[in-house]
């Protein structure tokens, strides 16, 4: 298999969080003969938001120090760039707004789509660099028709392709995922061989700009939210709550309502402040729709396809039939996703990501695309 076009270019900006994977990415590119510049993105000023920088999982000065140490040791330039404005506009505001509207957004998707693979790429280009590398566990391969395909990371347990479905052909051509073809233990070994202590660092998995409970963060940004009633599916009031932003469709724990059988959030109505709960079977539906759909190939399939659909990060996926639909403007930016056999809870605001049902000969699974689960269609 041929290398992606991007890998013929020998200079790259590496997005460095200070974590294991981005540090390893920078070193691997240096080993491969790249001219590397490290950039850390300061996306959120914890001092201004009553946050606790010591508890945050990234973008804290200590992480930047780690990235800076690696850059100094290996002698490549390193800068901290201010992304606060674009991050607030592209990520924080939609994140908070979605929660207030009773949705469950995934901010990492928006950050990748609008900040890392767009704004960072533009700013890398202004430094004279056409390629951006990140520490994501995902792979880019050239397909038989010479277009580029997005695939799962070699390490299935670390795979981050779910967060990358919105990448376009132009994005893929200008992106490198150096650790995507490695297993996490190999990455740690690699760093240890290079004498770097970041290999012992904890994983960062939380939302990087939230240091406590998400619900508290939402209120800190958008103000105190009004509470409302919790109702059963038959309309009976079974409890009260402190705000719809504290719930996710499919959620079981923390409802504060006792019942004989476990209860799940079935629906969130932000307009009336009503959270409806019920038993697990009541979550079942035969289909749902997604909006803001991206097809990585750049072209929506003309006929329905079968695909493995993941409805949240780390979801193993369910087989679905996907039909591309056009929106009001005629763009094919919507899709209807129908469950075929198994089903799973569908949380509006989360991403549904479409994968090839079968792995390629190297054991990697191709990402066809994905979209955001629509509330109105349900």
């Amino acid at each position, binding site marked *: 298999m041929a290398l992606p076009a991007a890998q013929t270019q020998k200079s790259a900006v590496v997005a460095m969080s200070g974590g294991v994977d981005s540090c390893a990415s920078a070193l691997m590119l240096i080993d491969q003969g790249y001219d590397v510049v490290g950039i850390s993105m300061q996306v959120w000023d914890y001092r201004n938001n009553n946050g606790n920088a010591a508890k945050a999982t990234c973008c804290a000065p200590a992480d930047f120090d780690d990235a800076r140490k690696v850059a100094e040791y290996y002698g490549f*330039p390193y800068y901290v*760039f201010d992304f606060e404005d674009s991050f607030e506009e592209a990520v924080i505001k939609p994140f908070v707004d979605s929660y207030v509207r009773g949705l469950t957004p995934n901010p990492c998707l928006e950050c990748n789509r609008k900040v890392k693979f767009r704004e960072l790429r533009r700013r890398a280009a*202004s430094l004279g660099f056409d390629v951006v590398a990140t520490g994501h566990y995902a792979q880019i391969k050239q397909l038989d028709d*010479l277009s580029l395909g997005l695939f799962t990371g070699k390490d299935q347990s670390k795979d981050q392709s779910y967060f990358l479905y919105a990448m376009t052909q132009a994005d893929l051509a200008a992106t490198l995922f150096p650790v995507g073809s490695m297993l996490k233990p190999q990455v740690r070994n690699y760093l240890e061989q290079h004498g770097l202590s970041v290999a012992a660092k904890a994983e960062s998995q939380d939302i990087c700009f939230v240091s406590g409970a998400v619900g508290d963060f939402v209120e800190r940004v958008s103000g105190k939210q009004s509470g409302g009633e919790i109702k059963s599916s038959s309309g009976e009031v079974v409890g009260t709550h402190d705000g719809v932003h504290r719930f996710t469709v499919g959620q079981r724990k923390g409802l504060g309502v006792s019942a004989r059988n476990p209860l799940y959030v079935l629906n969130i109505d932000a307009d009336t402040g009503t959270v409806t709960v019920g038993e697990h079977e009541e979550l079942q539906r035969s289909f749902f729709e997604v909006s803001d759909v991206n097809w990585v190939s750049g072209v929506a399939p003309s006929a329905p396809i079968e695909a493995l659909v993941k409805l949240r990060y780390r979801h193993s996926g369910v087989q679905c039939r996907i039909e591309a639909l056009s929106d009001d403007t005629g763009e094919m930016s919507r899709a209807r996703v129908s469950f075929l056999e198994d089903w799973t809870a569908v949380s509006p605001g989360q991403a549904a990501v479409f994968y090839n049902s079968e792995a390629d000969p190297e054991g990697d699974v191709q990402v066809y695309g994905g979209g955001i689960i629509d509330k109105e269609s349900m």
Partner: protein
Amino acid sequence: MFRFDANASSRLRPQVREAVSEYLSVHGDCGANASSIHGHGRRARAALREARASLLEAAGLAGFRPVKAVFCSGGTEACNQMIFGFLPRSAAPGANIVTTAIEHQAVQEAAAAAAELGFELRRVLPQSNGLVAPEDVLAMCDSATEVVCVMAANNVTGALLDVAETARLLRGASLSAAIVCDATQAFGKTELDCAELMKAGVDAVALSAHKVGALPGVGALLLSTSESSCRVFRPMLVGGPQEERFRAGTENLPGIVSFGAAAKAIKAQGAEERSNVSAARDKLWQILNERIDDIERITPDVPHSLGNTLAFRAGGVRGDDLVAALDLSGVAASTGSACSSGRQEASHVFRALGLSEEAAREAVRLSLDWDVNLDQAVAGAEKIIQCVKRMREVSLPLADQLQPTA
């Protein structure tokens, strides 16, 4: 490498390297405490005396009797000392501090700390030309004003403020506030006449060594001790009797010797240096202005600015990106401010000048070293032009550049 960031820290002068080497070769093998009575101590004390004399002379204070030059750890300490040294222990009703809105953080944060103690903080905004009118300072002051801080030269724009005239106005209005002046950027880059400042009524002047080609970690507070100075200075640091009890702590002799050597060099060759530097700065601006569209000079015109400083903005080009791009091209520059993470941010000075958020974010500061020459200005300008042009090419809306490749 083109070093156009002298206002952050300037290139070490060869005379400084020599003087420090000589000092270390004489004293370096044993502790040299200028307070000791033995021979080593006496030699250290002599070095201290010589450095102090050189500094006073370069600051225009040779023969000006009622003054103390107090060595300390740097410009920041000197600025803190001159503010807290003149503040009463507690704030009377209405007690206030007046500063310009374009002071360095060393003054701004010290004044903010004083505000936490109950002193009202008043900030005088600059005019649109970047200068602060003496009348505007006077208008902010009243009989309860304890300290007035006006910098001699702004570190970001290079604006020269008329501190002497400001002091004359305040004293003419019979205000008894302490008048203090951060001259860390003005010293060496202008013909700083501290005698004139003090005659006009200035009580204290802060200086820094590494801004004039000496070692970092040393500064000086020049204190007027004239009888007309009605303010009592109370040292922040107490302990041993060093610096005539104005500033306790064993003197940093190698640093102080470096400061003295730099002062001597400034006295000997400062005038010639300044004329070369400002010629280079003017050339640099001439080229940039001719070759870059939509470029705006923020530094005030001659004679109202430091001859080495050129702050400007190129429309559509972020300052922090340009500084990084310049670094990769071998040009050291600055946006004038950086946060603890190392991120370059728009200086509060640009905002105080009334620049919009966007324009402030585009601002970049070039500041030339004492030994810069015309060739460097010309070659450096080319690098800057290349970077700005490339950055403008890629700052098109994203949709225009990201055509799918397949």
